């Protein structure tokens, strides 16, 4: 705070529209930057490729969980109605696997939905109620109509002056350091 020399951890630059942010992201990628992010009020199509990001692994995570949840559902139904408390109802076999479908399906969907939401949060390291970016003026604009590029200081390419110069060159405005 007071007196201590302020160390830059983040540089932000505003861009005029989604297309400019997209092309800036490509130039950042081509210049070798790794730890930058493109903030926008809505997801911009093509941004993953432009930033050089891999596909989200969430699909695989949920897929595997869904498979095991389905199995767990069937196992629960089998164990309770065949092993734990076999009960003759309408003369039907204890292991009426056909009738187990709806509940096993529901357990699978329920578990997978929880994993989809909480897995997404975990991959995004949320909840994170404080982040350096919230100290900037530009961050308040993002959710409204800001197309903001942020670079963190631990990026190997990072060099406070050089990076700022580069951001200006690729169309960044209202540069901000926090």
């Amino acid at each position, binding site marked *: 705070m007071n007196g201590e020399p302020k160390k830059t951890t983040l540089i932000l630059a505003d*861009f005029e*529209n*989604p*297309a*400019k942010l997209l*092309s800036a*992201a*490509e130039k950042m990628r081509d210049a070798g930057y790794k730890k930058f*992010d*493109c*903030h*926008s*009020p*809505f*997801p*911009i*199509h*093509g*941004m*993953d*490729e*432009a*930033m050089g*990001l891999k*596909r*989200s692994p*969430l699909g695989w995570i949920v897929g595997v969980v869904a498979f095991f949840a389905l199995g767990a559902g069937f196992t629960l*139904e089998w164990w*309770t*109605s065949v092993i*734990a*408390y076999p*009960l003759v109802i*309408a003369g039907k076999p204890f292991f*009426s696997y056909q009738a187990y479908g*709806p*509940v096993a*399906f*529901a357990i699978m*969907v*329920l578990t*997978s*939905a929880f994993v*989809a*939401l909480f897995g*997404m949060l975990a*991959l*995004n390291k*949320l*909840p994170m*109620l*404080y*982040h350096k*970016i919230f100290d900037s003026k530009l961050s308040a604009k*993002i*959710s*409204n*109509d*800001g*197309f903001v590029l942020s670079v963190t200081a631990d990026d190997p390419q990072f060099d406070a002056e050089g990076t700022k110069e580069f951001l200006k060159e690729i169309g960044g405005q209202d540069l901000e350091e926090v």
Partner: protein
Amino acid sequence: MNSEASTLEVIPVTEEKPLIAGNPTFASITQKIAEIAEQKTPKAWWIAIAISSSILFMMIILIGWLVWEGIGTWGVNIPVGWGWAIVNFVWWVGIGHAGTLISAILFLFRQKWRTSINRFAEAMTLFAVICALVFPGIHVGRIWVAYWMVPVPNQMSVWPNFRSPLLWDFFAVATYFTVSLLFWYTGLIPDLALMRDRAKSKVRKIVLGIFSLGWRGGNRQWKNYEMAYLLLAGLSTPLVLSVHSVVSTDFATSVIPGWHSTIFPPYFVAGAIFSGFALVMTLAIIARKIYGLEDFITIHHLEKMNKIMLATGMMVGYSYGCEYFISWYSGNQYEEFTFINRAFGPYAWAYWTMISCNVLVPQIFWFKKLRTSIPVMFIASLLINVGMWFERFVIIVSSLSADFLPSSWDYYTPTLVDVGIFIGSFGLFFTFFLIFLRFVPMIAISEVKGVLPQADPHYYHGNGKGGQTAAAGQIAGGGQS
């Protein structure tokens, strides 16, 4: 930044009319929707919630009376053991189907117009399912042991009977509610972050900050977010179709004439979507008028919903016809009698109400003039929901009241407690809905911005505004993540 407003009549390439009218900018959309939840509470809202919560209070009193006195306070008898409570349950659950259909199935089909209506349709789903869950909950008699439906170890070592459709129902509806809630919340996160960024007071900032979980809108977050949204849509799609199918098995797996039918699952699902869209329509017409959202929920949105109602209404009408054909074709005298009795017996009045509202009323939507007329569609949407309530009444009551043995036949009449609890469920629904309208952005702001023409990087290509072509060219092949 303030991207230039679209002044185009139609979007180039696709040549469609812009989904959101009035040439909005990103900022104007934020302002319009967010301020509804930020302004000082209007007087009309207080009056509305006073009325709805009074009705809810009446329901709570009547449920207390029901629990104290027993199911005998209802009009159920032998043979009609399922009365209004189950009619109301099926009706409310059916209504709940539109929200998830709009948020999940229309998402997978890339129907971008859904973004204007999905938020409040999903909210409607949640509240309708809450109303629905009340009824079987209070119908079990000893409601303090309703937890026996959950497979938890207990002192009797007894487990639920997984072969019973009534238990499937519990799992299906409980899953449906939970998944709809998760889906709804996922959609809300970016909008809550927007509300947080706009918040003036410290309390608001903290509360919205907690609920938006620290969302930063970076593409590294959007990437996982979009995948989660897609997965939830993919999971919800079979769920929507399964829930009412499972509800229908409560009937279809029994041996009661008029219930024991394989057409029930698709027939119930079509009816559910039909009635759900009708209620979305009713609420959308009121909300767009009160909050001035005509640019967001345009006449094209309403027309598309009417077309869906026409299609599903026809499916429902086909199912009615098919049931008659099968009852005759099966040669089963009990089946034949049940269907003749429905149309000409003691419940004929209910049957013909159902046919008029569900089969005849939607036929007006064949005419463009009528399906783009707001008063016409408003009245039609109300009539459709009346008709769909009567459909469940006809299925449940007329089949039960005259089953195999004439000596056991009886006529069913609801009591005031039945009527009061049904009316009370509207109090429950509207209390929740009013709270939602007051505190949460009723239209998915981030999603609406995403379907504006200027949200697409291609928009700036060749428009003299973007000045970059490489990216546009590259993403044309890239599609989306």
